[in-house]
């Protein structure tokens, strides 16, 4: 598959369309399933667009979060600013942006925090042209390439 020869067998229905997303490494697409799971978390984040809500949140984060029907995991992730777990809980980055903006942090900070890299290493990677797509397109391709490199393991 490439830009010149797009996927020759595109998904025939919504099931195939959605299943293909799970093949992308290190990526969680904001599907209906995630949107439903994360409704309260995302709406909490939206509430931080108002200055008075930001002030109330800063004054007592835990009490403010208790006003929303969050799962215990989602609440803990917000308190820890664990963005990967927030996304697992159905958070979407554009909603969660209201949270890191409240903290005075940038998209680069939040994105970097999800990669397992230090902020310095992430910033250096972006300054030198970003993460290469090579070897980061498809879990199936990565597995097939690994099998090619270690043929004995299949025997």
């Amino acid at each position: 598959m490439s830009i010149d020869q797009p996927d020759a067998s595109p998904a025939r229905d919504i099931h195939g369309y959605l299943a293909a997303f799970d093949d992308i490494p290190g990526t969680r697409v904001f599907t209906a399933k995630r949107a439903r799971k994360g409704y309260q978390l995302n709406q909490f984040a939206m509430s931080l667009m108002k200055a008075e809500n930001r002030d109330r949140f800063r004054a007592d984060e835990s009490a403010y979060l208790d006003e929303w029907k969050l799962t215990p995991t989602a609440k803990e992730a917000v308190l820890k600013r664990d963005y990967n777990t927030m996304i697992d809980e159905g958070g979407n980055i554009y909603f969660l942006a209201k949270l890191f903006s409240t903290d005075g942090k940038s998209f680069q900070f939040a994105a970097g925090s999800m990669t397992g890299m230090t902020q310095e290493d992430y910033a250096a990677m972006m300054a030198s042209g970003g993460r290469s797509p090579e070897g980061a397109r498809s879990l199936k391709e990565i597995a097939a390439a690994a099998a090619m490199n270690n043929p004995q393991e299949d025997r």
Partner: protein
Amino acid sequence: MARITAGVTTSHIPAVGAALDNGRSHEPYWQPVFAGYEWVQAWQKEEKPDVVVLVYNDHASAFDMKVIPTFAIGCAEQFQPADEGWGPRQVPVVEGHPDLAWHIAQSCILDEFDMTIINEMDVDHGLTVPLSVIFGPQEKWPAKIIPLAVNVVTYPPPSGNRCWLLGEAIARAVASFPEDLNVQIWGTGGMSHQLQGPRAGLINKEWDGRFLDKLVEDPESLRRMPHIEYLREAGSEGIELVMWLIMRGALGKQVEQLNRFYHVPASNTAVGHIVLRPKADGADIPASDTIEANSPAAQEMIA
């Protein structure tokens, strides 16, 4: 008659707006980004568009999870810059063109594009950063703006082909507006970027370059490109590029490229910008085959 005279695309990176607003555009990191827009800013002073149909996506600012319109058209007199969590950008209020906006909305609906009509809305960096880079900083924006917000956040977004066809419907709507107006259509967002998960930071220069080439010379192939291709190759937020096809569909088959700019790095995102002129002045936009679009009585009602 109103006519679409040009198509412009640009990324709408929030950090670019912040660099401009905080007086950091001359810094070595940012200078090459802003230098890339000098050509278009000078060109716009000559072009003097009356109206811009500005295709963008809202980033959880005007629309939260309560209501998720696929295609929403702003028909208000004015749109205020949104507070995205750090206070509104200090940029001029965005003035709309309700007469043309309502005309496009009505025409598109009769043409079987069921637009959501928005009469009150704040506009976020997705709309105001393109204004800042394409016109340059201004006391007052030099054109009326019709915001056209596309859902590219909650899946599925519209397909590339659907975006292209909407562009054609917008071109037909503009062509049937009686007032003599110079109209541009802008597509914004992209290019390759991923803001979430362990793969965050993805940039694909080679793919972006081919996308720009195809936008000019072989846009038919982009109509068929599935979402998964954007996600794999251009990153999870690279899906915004599907909006560029609304702009491209509105220009007709043949275009002339007037300017192109591509730059990495700018925060997390590849900056892409292109200026296109339709060659056939709308003559190669296919006619509508819908019943109401071809009904003199229906068209009379929206005239």
